Protein backbone atom coordinates (compact mmCIF):
# COMPACT_ATOMS: atom_id res chain seq x y z
CA UNK A 1 0.00 0.00 0.00
CA UNK A 2 1.21 3.44 -0.87
CA UNK A 3 2.10 5.62 2.08
CA UNK A 4 1.02 8.76 0.37
CA UNK A 5 -2.35 9.15 -1.26
CA UNK A 6 -3.15 12.75 -0.49
CA UNK A 7 -4.57 13.60 -3.89
CA UNK A 8 -6.23 11.30 -6.41
CA UNK A 9 -6.81 13.13 -9.69
CA UNK A 10 -9.63 12.06 -12.00
CA UNK A 11 -8.77 12.29 -15.72
CA UNK A 12 -11.33 11.67 -18.48
CA UNK A 13 -10.44 8.43 -20.26
CA UNK A 14 -11.30 9.65 -23.72
CA UNK A 15 -8.90 12.54 -24.27
CA UNK A 16 -5.30 11.65 -25.17
CA UNK A 17 -4.00 15.13 -24.36
CA UNK A 18 -5.22 14.87 -20.78
CA UNK A 19 -4.12 11.27 -20.32
CA UNK A 20 -0.55 11.87 -21.39
CA UNK A 21 -0.20 15.04 -19.29
CA UNK A 22 -1.95 13.61 -16.23
CA UNK A 23 1.12 13.05 -14.06
CA UNK A 24 2.66 16.52 -14.37
CA UNK A 25 0.54 18.17 -11.68
CA UNK A 26 1.99 16.29 -8.73
CA UNK A 27 -1.06 14.16 -7.82
CA UNK A 28 -0.13 11.10 -5.74
CA UNK A 29 -2.59 8.93 -7.66
CA UNK A 30 -4.14 9.32 -11.11
CA UNK A 31 -7.56 7.87 -11.85
CA UNK A 32 -8.25 7.35 -15.56
CA UNK A 33 -12.01 7.46 -15.78
CA UNK A 34 -14.09 5.20 -18.00
CA UNK A 35 -17.35 5.89 -16.21
CA UNK A 36 -19.04 9.29 -15.86
CA UNK A 37 -16.77 11.31 -18.14
CA UNK A 38 -17.11 8.92 -21.09
CA UNK A 39 -20.24 8.83 -23.27
CA UNK A 40 -21.82 5.40 -23.80
CA UNK A 41 -20.96 5.57 -27.51
CA UNK A 42 -17.26 6.01 -26.69
CA UNK A 43 -16.84 3.42 -23.94
CA UNK A 44 -15.13 1.03 -26.38
CA UNK A 45 -12.71 3.69 -27.60
CA UNK A 46 -11.80 4.97 -24.13
CA UNK A 47 -11.08 1.47 -22.90
CA UNK A 48 -8.57 0.81 -25.70
CA UNK A 49 -7.03 4.25 -25.32
CA UNK A 50 -6.53 3.87 -21.56
CA UNK A 51 -5.08 0.40 -22.07
CA UNK A 52 -2.60 1.72 -24.60
CA UNK A 53 -1.51 4.76 -22.65
CA UNK A 54 -0.83 2.65 -19.56
CA UNK A 55 1.07 0.14 -21.63
CA UNK A 56 3.16 2.52 -23.69
CA UNK A 57 3.93 5.59 -21.58
CA UNK A 58 6.12 5.69 -18.50
CA UNK A 59 4.10 6.75 -15.46
CA UNK A 60 6.53 5.40 -12.88
CA UNK A 61 6.44 7.22 -9.59
CA UNK A 62 2.67 7.78 -9.66
CA UNK A 63 -0.04 5.33 -8.65
CA UNK A 64 -2.18 4.64 -11.73
CA UNK A 65 -5.81 3.71 -11.11
CA UNK A 66 -8.59 3.03 -13.61
CA UNK A 67 -12.18 3.79 -12.68
CA UNK A 68 -14.29 1.20 -14.46
CA UNK A 69 -18.02 1.25 -15.08
CA UNK A 70 -20.36 -0.46 -12.58
CA UNK A 71 -19.80 -4.20 -12.63
CA UNK A 72 -23.38 -5.20 -11.83
CA UNK A 73 -26.31 -4.33 -14.13
CA UNK A 74 -23.98 -3.12 -16.88
CA UNK A 75 -21.80 -5.04 -19.33
CA UNK A 76 -19.23 -2.25 -19.42
CA UNK A 77 -17.50 -2.83 -16.08
CA UNK A 78 -16.45 -6.38 -16.85
CA UNK A 79 -15.38 -5.42 -20.37
CA UNK A 80 -13.24 -2.65 -18.88
CA UNK A 81 -11.45 -5.05 -16.55
CA UNK A 82 -10.97 -7.70 -19.23
CA UNK A 83 -9.40 -5.15 -21.58
CA UNK A 84 -7.13 -3.39 -19.11
CA UNK A 85 -6.07 -5.79 -16.34
CA UNK A 86 -3.47 -7.30 -18.65
CA UNK A 87 -1.42 -4.07 -18.66
CA UNK A 88 -1.40 -4.10 -14.87
CA UNK A 89 -2.69 -0.82 -13.58
CA UNK A 90 -1.87 -0.34 -9.90
CA UNK A 91 -5.56 -0.53 -9.08
CA UNK A 92 -9.12 -0.45 -10.34
CA UNK A 93 -11.73 1.80 -8.80
CA UNK A 94 -15.22 0.36 -8.60
CA UNK A 95 -18.07 2.88 -8.65
CA UNK A 96 -21.39 2.27 -6.86
CA UNK A 97 -19.46 -0.27 -4.83
CA UNK A 98 -21.03 -2.90 -2.61
CA UNK A 99 -19.75 -6.23 -1.28
CA UNK A 100 -20.99 -8.22 -4.25
CA UNK A 101 -19.44 -5.92 -6.81
CA UNK A 102 -16.10 -5.96 -5.03
CA UNK A 103 -16.16 -9.78 -4.86
CA UNK A 104 -16.93 -10.05 -8.58
CA UNK A 105 -14.10 -7.65 -9.42
CA UNK A 106 -11.67 -9.41 -7.08
CA UNK A 107 -12.63 -12.75 -8.60
CA UNK A 108 -11.94 -11.50 -12.12
CA UNK A 109 -8.56 -10.16 -11.00
CA UNK A 110 -7.71 -13.50 -9.32
CA UNK A 111 -8.23 -15.24 -12.62
CA UNK A 112 -6.43 -12.70 -14.76
CA UNK A 113 -3.43 -12.51 -12.46
CA UNK A 114 -3.13 -16.26 -12.48
CA UNK A 115 -3.45 -16.49 -16.26
CA UNK A 116 -0.96 -13.69 -16.87
CA UNK A 117 1.44 -14.93 -14.23
CA UNK A 118 1.22 -11.70 -12.22
CA UNK A 119 1.90 -11.74 -8.51
CA UNK A 120 -1.38 -12.50 -6.67
CA UNK A 121 -3.22 -9.45 -5.41
CA UNK A 122 -0.76 -7.09 -7.09
CA UNK A 123 -3.69 -5.18 -8.60
CA UNK A 124 -5.49 -3.29 -5.83
CA UNK A 125 -9.09 -2.14 -5.58
CA UNK A 126 -10.55 1.18 -4.54
CA UNK A 127 -14.24 1.20 -3.70
CA UNK A 128 -16.30 4.29 -4.42
CA UNK A 129 -19.20 4.32 -1.98
CA UNK A 130 -22.00 6.60 -3.03
CA UNK A 131 -25.22 5.28 -1.50
CA UNK A 132 -26.72 5.27 1.99
CA UNK A 133 -26.73 1.48 2.09
CA UNK A 134 -23.04 1.35 1.14
CA UNK A 135 -22.13 3.89 3.81
CA UNK A 136 -24.05 1.87 6.40
CA UNK A 137 -22.44 -1.36 5.19
CA UNK A 138 -18.90 -0.02 5.20
CA UNK A 139 -17.71 -2.42 7.85
CA UNK A 140 -18.72 -5.36 5.65
CA UNK A 141 -17.46 -3.69 2.47
CA UNK A 142 -13.93 -3.32 3.83
CA UNK A 143 -13.86 -7.06 4.41
CA UNK A 144 -15.06 -7.95 0.91
CA UNK A 145 -11.53 -8.24 -0.50
CA UNK A 146 -7.99 -8.07 0.81
CA UNK A 147 -7.20 -6.15 -2.37
CA UNK A 148 -8.90 -3.05 -1.01
CA UNK A 149 -6.41 -0.20 -0.68
CA UNK A 150 -8.89 2.50 0.14
CA UNK A 151 -12.44 3.70 0.01
CA UNK A 152 -13.55 6.95 -1.59
CA UNK A 153 -16.70 8.77 -0.63
CA UNK A 154 -18.92 9.84 -3.52
CA UNK A 155 -21.01 12.60 -1.99
CA UNK A 156 -22.92 13.74 -5.06
CA UNK A 157 -25.00 10.57 -5.40
CA UNK A 158 -25.21 10.17 -1.65
CA UNK A 159 -26.68 13.61 -0.99
CA UNK A 160 -28.97 13.24 -4.00
CA UNK A 161 -30.32 10.03 -2.52
CA UNK A 162 -30.84 11.74 0.81
CA UNK A 163 -32.56 14.62 -0.92
CA UNK A 164 -30.23 17.14 0.70
CA UNK A 165 -27.97 19.85 -0.67
CA UNK A 166 -24.23 19.91 -0.48
CA UNK A 167 -23.00 23.00 1.31
CA UNK A 168 -19.68 24.74 1.75
CA UNK A 169 -19.99 24.09 5.47
CA UNK A 170 -20.28 20.35 4.86
CA UNK A 171 -22.32 19.36 7.93
CA UNK A 172 -24.39 17.02 5.75
CA UNK A 173 -21.29 14.86 5.26
CA UNK A 174 -20.24 14.76 8.88
CA UNK A 175 -21.58 11.29 9.59
CA UNK A 176 -20.46 9.68 6.33
CA UNK A 177 -16.97 11.12 6.60
CA UNK A 178 -16.52 10.21 10.24
CA UNK A 179 -17.84 6.72 9.70
CA UNK A 180 -15.60 6.22 6.65
CA UNK A 181 -12.54 7.44 8.54
CA UNK A 182 -13.13 5.05 11.41
CA UNK A 183 -13.92 1.99 9.33
CA UNK A 184 -10.94 2.52 7.06
CA UNK A 185 -8.60 3.23 9.93
CA UNK A 186 -9.67 0.03 11.67
CA UNK A 187 -9.10 -1.90 8.46
CA UNK A 188 -5.75 -0.22 7.84
CA UNK A 189 -6.71 1.28 4.48
CA UNK A 190 -7.03 4.82 3.14
CA UNK A 191 -10.15 6.93 3.49
CA UNK A 192 -10.43 9.29 0.51
CA UNK A 193 -12.75 12.26 0.56
CA UNK A 194 -15.26 13.16 -2.12
CA UNK A 195 -14.25 15.77 -4.74
CA UNK A 196 -14.94 19.47 -4.23
CA UNK A 197 -17.10 20.62 -7.12
CA UNK A 198 -16.23 24.29 -7.67
CA UNK A 199 -12.84 24.17 -9.38
CA UNK A 200 -12.48 27.95 -9.32
CA UNK A 201 -12.85 28.21 -5.54
CA UNK A 202 -9.47 27.47 -3.94
CA UNK A 203 -10.50 28.80 -0.52
CA UNK A 204 -13.60 26.61 -0.47
CA UNK A 205 -11.49 23.64 -1.49
CA UNK A 206 -8.99 24.30 1.27
CA UNK A 207 -11.77 24.54 3.85
CA UNK A 208 -13.44 21.37 2.58
CA UNK A 209 -10.16 19.43 2.58
CA UNK A 210 -9.24 20.69 6.02
CA UNK A 211 -12.62 19.54 7.34
CA UNK A 212 -12.10 16.08 5.85
CA UNK A 213 -8.60 15.81 7.26
CA UNK A 214 -9.71 16.90 10.72
CA UNK A 215 -12.21 14.01 10.74
CA UNK A 216 -9.49 11.49 9.92
CA UNK A 217 -9.71 11.12 6.16
CA UNK A 218 -6.31 10.55 4.58
CA UNK A 219 -6.72 12.11 1.15
CA UNK A 220 -9.11 13.69 -1.31
CA UNK A 221 -10.23 13.26 -4.88
CA UNK A 222 -9.37 16.05 -7.34
CA UNK A 223 -11.44 16.70 -10.45
CA UNK A 224 -9.18 19.40 -11.91
CA UNK A 225 -5.38 19.72 -11.95
CA UNK A 226 -5.67 23.07 -10.19
CA UNK A 227 -7.00 21.31 -7.09
CA UNK A 228 -3.96 19.08 -6.64
CA UNK A 229 -1.63 21.60 -5.02
CA UNK A 230 -4.13 22.66 -2.36
CA UNK A 231 -5.11 19.08 -1.56
CA UNK A 232 -1.48 17.97 -1.28
CA UNK A 233 -0.69 20.84 1.05
CA UNK A 234 -3.70 20.16 3.24
CA UNK A 235 -2.99 16.45 3.61
CA UNK A 236 0.78 16.75 4.04
CA UNK A 237 2.19 16.55 7.52
CA UNK A 238 2.63 20.06 8.92
CA UNK A 239 6.14 21.28 9.84
CA UNK A 240 5.24 20.94 13.54
CA UNK A 241 4.08 17.35 13.01
CA UNK A 242 7.28 16.53 11.16
CA UNK A 243 9.48 18.02 13.86
CA UNK A 244 7.56 16.20 16.61
CA UNK A 245 7.67 12.91 14.67
CA UNK A 246 11.43 13.31 14.28
CA UNK A 247 11.80 13.78 18.02
CA UNK A 248 9.65 10.73 18.74
CA UNK A 249 11.59 8.48 16.38
CA UNK A 250 14.91 9.63 17.82
CA UNK A 251 13.65 9.09 21.38
CA UNK A 252 12.35 5.62 20.47
CA UNK A 253 15.82 4.65 19.26
CA UNK A 254 17.33 5.90 22.51
CA UNK A 255 14.71 4.05 24.55
CA UNK A 256 15.29 0.84 22.61
CA UNK A 257 18.98 1.04 23.42
CA UNK A 258 18.09 1.49 27.08
CA UNK A 259 15.56 -1.37 26.88
CA UNK A 260 12.50 0.75 27.66
CA UNK A 261 9.20 -0.13 25.93
CA UNK A 262 7.13 2.84 27.00
CA UNK A 263 8.50 6.25 27.96
CA UNK A 264 7.52 9.89 28.09
CA UNK A 265 8.52 12.69 25.75
CA UNK A 266 7.72 16.36 26.51
CA UNK A 267 5.39 15.10 29.24
CA UNK A 268 3.44 12.77 26.93
CA UNK A 269 3.53 9.00 26.92
CA UNK A 270 5.07 7.36 23.87
CA UNK A 271 4.02 3.80 23.15
CA UNK A 272 4.09 1.59 20.06
CA UNK A 273 1.10 3.20 18.23
CA UNK A 274 2.54 6.69 18.76
CA UNK A 275 5.92 5.53 17.52
CA UNK A 276 4.37 3.88 14.46
CA UNK A 277 2.44 7.02 13.65
CA UNK A 278 5.59 9.12 13.95
CA UNK A 279 7.39 6.83 11.55
CA UNK A 280 4.55 7.10 9.06
CA UNK A 281 4.56 10.90 9.29
CA UNK A 282 8.28 10.90 8.48
CA UNK A 283 7.78 8.54 5.54
CA UNK A 284 4.96 10.72 4.24
CA UNK A 285 6.99 13.87 4.71
CA UNK A 286 9.83 12.35 2.76
CA UNK A 287 7.51 11.26 -0.06
CA UNK A 288 5.93 14.71 -0.09
CA UNK A 289 9.36 16.27 -0.53
CA UNK A 290 9.38 17.90 2.90
CA UNK A 291 12.79 18.18 4.50
CA UNK A 292 12.97 15.81 7.46
Amino acid at each position, binding site marked *: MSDLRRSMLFVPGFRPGMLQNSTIYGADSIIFDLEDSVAVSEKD*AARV*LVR*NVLQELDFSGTEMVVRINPIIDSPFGKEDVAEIAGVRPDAFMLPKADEEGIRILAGMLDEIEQKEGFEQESIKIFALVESTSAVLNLSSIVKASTRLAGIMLGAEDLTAELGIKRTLQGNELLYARSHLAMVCKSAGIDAIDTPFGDVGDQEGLEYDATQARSLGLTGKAAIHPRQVGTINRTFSPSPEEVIYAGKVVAAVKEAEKAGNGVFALDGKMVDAPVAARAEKVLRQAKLAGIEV
Partner: protein
Amino acid sequence: MKITKSCGAGRQEANDIFIWLEPNEKEEVAIKLESVVKLQFGKQIEKVIRETLAKLGVTSASVTAWDSGALDYAIRARVETAVRRAGEV
Protein backbone atom coordinates in the same frame (compact mmCIF):
# COMPACT_ATOMS: atom_id res chain seq x y z
CA MET B 1 -9.40 -9.80 -43.67
CA LYS B 2 -10.98 -6.85 -45.41
CA ILE B 3 -12.81 -3.83 -44.12
CA THR B 4 -16.32 -4.11 -45.54
CA LYS B 5 -18.05 -1.35 -43.62
CA SER B 6 -17.23 2.34 -43.19
CA CYS B 7 -16.63 3.58 -39.68
CA GLY B 8 -14.35 5.76 -37.61
CA ALA B 9 -12.79 6.47 -34.24
CA GLY B 10 -11.08 9.36 -32.53
CA ARG B 11 -11.59 13.09 -32.71
CA GLN B 12 -10.22 16.16 -34.41
CA GLU B 13 -8.83 17.78 -31.29
CA ALA B 14 -5.30 18.42 -30.00
CA ASN B 15 -3.23 15.27 -29.44
CA ASP B 16 -5.89 13.05 -31.01
CA ILE B 17 -6.37 11.56 -34.46
CA PHE B 18 -9.57 10.75 -36.32
CA ILE B 19 -9.34 7.50 -38.27
CA TRP B 20 -11.92 6.75 -40.97
CA LEU B 21 -11.98 3.28 -42.51
CA GLU B 22 -13.68 2.35 -45.78
CA PRO B 23 -13.69 -0.74 -47.98
CA ASN B 24 -10.94 -0.68 -50.58
CA GLU B 25 -11.77 -2.26 -53.95
CA LYS B 26 -8.09 -2.64 -54.74
CA GLU B 27 -7.69 -5.19 -51.92
CA GLU B 28 -4.86 -3.32 -50.24
CA VAL B 29 -4.26 -0.88 -47.44
CA ALA B 30 -4.26 2.69 -48.72
CA ILE B 31 -3.66 5.62 -46.35
CA LYS B 32 -4.51 9.27 -46.84
CA LEU B 33 -3.04 11.41 -44.06
CA GLU B 34 -3.59 15.00 -43.07
CA SER B 35 -1.48 16.09 -40.13
CA VAL B 36 -0.23 19.24 -38.43
CA VAL B 37 3.10 17.46 -38.02
CA LYS B 38 3.20 15.77 -41.40
CA LEU B 39 6.63 17.08 -42.42
CA GLN B 40 8.33 15.68 -39.33
CA PHE B 41 6.16 12.70 -38.41
CA GLY B 42 4.11 11.82 -41.50
CA LYS B 43 6.08 8.66 -42.29
CA GLN B 44 5.98 7.50 -38.68
CA ILE B 45 2.21 8.01 -38.44
CA GLU B 46 1.59 6.04 -41.64
CA LYS B 47 3.90 3.30 -40.41
CA VAL B 48 2.02 3.03 -37.10
CA ILE B 49 -1.34 2.86 -38.88
CA ARG B 50 -0.07 0.19 -41.28
CA GLU B 51 1.52 -1.91 -38.51
CA THR B 52 -1.59 -1.75 -36.34
CA LEU B 53 -3.81 -2.85 -39.20
CA ALA B 54 -1.42 -5.71 -40.01
CA LYS B 55 -1.35 -6.82 -36.38
CA LEU B 56 -5.15 -6.93 -36.40
CA GLY B 57 -5.03 -8.94 -39.63
CA VAL B 58 -6.53 -6.25 -41.86
CA THR B 59 -5.29 -6.64 -45.44
CA SER B 60 -7.65 -4.36 -47.29
CA ALA B 61 -8.89 -0.95 -46.23
CA SER B 62 -8.99 2.64 -47.32
CA VAL B 63 -7.81 4.76 -44.39
CA THR B 64 -8.26 8.49 -44.05
CA ALA B 65 -6.59 10.04 -41.03
CA TRP B 66 -6.86 13.59 -39.71
CA ASP B 67 -4.10 13.98 -37.15
CA SER B 68 -3.75 16.79 -34.61
CA GLY B 69 -0.47 15.69 -33.06
CA ALA B 70 -1.45 12.29 -31.60
CA LEU B 71 1.31 10.17 -30.10
CA ASP B 72 1.79 6.60 -31.32
CA TYR B 73 -0.19 4.96 -28.48
CA ALA B 74 -3.23 7.07 -29.34
CA ILE B 75 -2.92 6.35 -33.07
CA ARG B 76 -2.78 2.60 -32.34
CA ALA B 77 -5.82 2.87 -30.06
CA ARG B 78 -7.89 4.79 -32.59
CA VAL B 79 -7.04 2.41 -35.42
CA GLU B 80 -7.87 -0.61 -33.26
CA THR B 81 -11.19 0.88 -32.17
CA ALA B 82 -12.12 1.72 -35.76
CA VAL B 83 -11.35 -1.84 -36.87
CA ARG B 84 -13.38 -3.29 -34.02
CA ARG B 85 -16.27 -1.04 -34.91
CA ALA B 86 -16.08 -2.33 -38.45
CA GLY B 87 -16.80 -5.69 -36.89
CA GLU B 88 -13.55 -7.23 -38.07
CA VAL B 89 -12.00 -8.15 -34.72
